[in-house]
C-alpha cells in the first residue's frame, strides 16, 4: 500500500471513486506500466490532483483503471485482465503523459522504431511488432494513443477495445 508524506488513507481497489489532494504535487510516478501488474496500481490515490477510478470494474473480461490529471488534464487508462496483468494502456489529453512510465519496457522499443523509420515517416503513428502494438495520433493541444501486448490480453479482446 502506498502512502504519501502528508496523508495516510486506506482505499479499496474496487469501484470506488477516489480523489485525494496532497499539499505538494507528486509526479505521476506510481502507476503500473504496460506489461506490469495491476497490483502495482496505487492502492490509495494519495497523489496530488490525480483521480483514480476503476471505470469498468464490473467488466467481465477486463478491468479498466483510469488516472486523470484534473478535469481537463491528460488521462491514462490501464486495462487489466483476470491474470492481473496490464495488457493495454490508452491515453488522451492536451499533452502526452509520461510515455516511459505508461509503456514501461515497451517505451524503448517504441523509440527505436520511430528512430529507424526514416525521414519520410515524420510523425510515425503506428508500431506493430511481435508482441507489442501501438497507435497514436494528434496535434498540438490534443494527443491520444493506445498500446497493447496481445499475449497478455484476454481472448476476444482487440486493440480496438483499448481506448
Amino acid at each position, binding site marked *: 500500500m502506498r502512502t504519501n508524506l502528508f496523508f495516510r488513507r486506506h482505499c479499496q481497489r474496487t469501484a470506488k471513486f477516489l480523489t485525494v489532494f496532497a499539499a505538494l*504535487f507528486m509526479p505521476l510516478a506510481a502507476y503500473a506500466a504496460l506489461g506490469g501488474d495491476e497490483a502495482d496500481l496505487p492502492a490509495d490515490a494519495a497523489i496530488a490532483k490525480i483521480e483514480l477510478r476503476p471505470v469498468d470494474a464490473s467488466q467481465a473480461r477486463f478491468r479498466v483503471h483510469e488516472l486523470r490529471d484534473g478535469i481537463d488534464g491528460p488521462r491514462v487508462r490501464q486495462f487489466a485482465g483476470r491474470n492481473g496483468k496490464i495488457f493495454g494502456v490508452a491515453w488522451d489529453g492536451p499533452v502526452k503523459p509520461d510515455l516511459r512510465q505508461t509503456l514501461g519496457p515497451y517505451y524503448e522499443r517504441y523509440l527505436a522504431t520511430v528512430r529507424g523509420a526514416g525521414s519520410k515517416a515524420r510523425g*510515425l503513428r503506428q508500431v506493430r511488432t511481435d508482441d507489442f502494438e501501438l497507435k497514436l495520433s494528434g496535434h498540438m493541444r*490534443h494527443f491520444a494513443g493506445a498500446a497493447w501486448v496481445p499475449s497478455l490480453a484476454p481472448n476476444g479482446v482487440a486493440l480496438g477495445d483499448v481506448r
Partner: protein
Amino acid sequence: MRRKLSFHTLMVLVLALSACSGGGSGGDAPASGSSSQSGNTPTSTTNQIALMVDSGPAGTTTINELYTSVTICAPGTSICQTIDHILVDTGSTGLRLMASELDSAMLAALPSSFDSGGDVLAECAQFVDGYTWGPIRFADIKLGGENASNVAIQVVGAPNFAGTPLICQNTGVAENTVQSFGAKGIIGISVFTQDCGQYCATHNPNGMYYTCHGSVCSATLAPLAKQLWNPVALFPTDNNGTMISLPSVPSNGATSVTGTLTFGIATQTNNQLANAAVLTVDPIYGELTATVGSTTYTGSFLDTGSNAYFYDIGLFPHCQYLAGFYCPSNAQGQSGILQGRNGQTLAADFIVGNPELLLAANPNIAVYSQLAGPSGMSGVDFGLPFFLGRTVFTAIENRTTPAGTGPWLGIIAN
C-alpha cells in the same frame, strides 16, 4: 507606446479601423506586441508569401512537407536573418527555429523570456512522435510585408542551455535538429492564438512550459501572454486568419510544387471568401467530424503539418519498408465527407495509392496526393494531400470575419 490622441488623430484612427474587416480582440495580447495606434490609414500590405513542397533541407528527404521562408530580426534592430525550409503547420501554434540555423550574432541578440523570479522560460513542445526543447526568446517576425514585433519564439536545441528535463524526454523522440525534425523550423498557424492556451495558464505541471535556473529546470505555469503566440494573430492587420492555396499534382506525384500563404481572411482583394464552404471546429481542440467510407470519425482535423491522410482502416496492407504508410497493390478510392460543428458538410474524397511503387519508379517524388497511413485514434488526420488542389482558410479563434467568428475552416476546391 502610449500617446495622447488628438481629435484629428482619433478620427483618422476610427476611419482606419472601420476600413479593416479583420478586427482582432487583442485583450490578451502580450504587452510588447505590435501596435496599430499609429494614426495612419493602413495601406495595402503585401500579405502573401510563397509556399513550396520539395524534398526538404539538406540532410533530409521528405515527402509532402510544406515549407516557407521566414525572416526574423533581433527586436528593434537590423540584425536579421531569413531562414528557408520552415515547416508551415496549421496543426500547431508558434514559431520555432533550430538554433543550428541561426547566426551566432542572432543567437546572441535575441533576448530571453524571464518569469517573475528572473529565471529563463523554456518549452518542451510536443508533436506527434516527439518534442522540441529549447528556451523562449523574443524576435521580430517578418512575413512578406507583415510584421509582428517582439514575439516569443522557441529556439530549439540552443547550445549551452539546460538539458531536456526527464519528463520531457519521456514524451517521445527528440527533434531538436534539422535532420530529426525534417525542417529548419516550424511556423504554427492554427486556429489558436497561443500554443497551449488556458491549460498551461492554469495547470502546473502542464508538460510544456518550464523555467530554468542555470541548468536546472522545473515545470511552471505559463500565462497566456507568456506563451508562444500565433504570429498571424499579432500582425497589426490581416490578423484574423490565413489562406493556403496549393495546386493539384498528377496521380504519379511531382518533385515539387509551389503555392501561396496569404494572411488575413477577407481583409484584402486577394483573400476573399468567395464560395468557400465554412466548417466550424470545436473551440478546445480545433476538430470536426469526418466520414470516410461508412465510418464516422469524430475528432478529425485538417493539418498541413501531417504529410498524409492518417486514419485507422484494417483493409490496407502497410508498406514493407516505407514505415508509417499504406501500400495497397492498386489505388483505392475513398469517399470522404467533412462536417463542421455548424453542420456544414463538404465532399472530401481521396485516393490511397502505393508510395513504394511510386518511389521505386521515381525516387525524386516529393509531392504525392495519394499518401495515406495508419493512425488509429478516433479522428482522421487530413494532412497535406488534402490541401493539394484546394484553397483552405483557417480562421483564428475569437477573430471577426464575414463568415462569423473563428475558429472555423473554409475550403474552396481549386
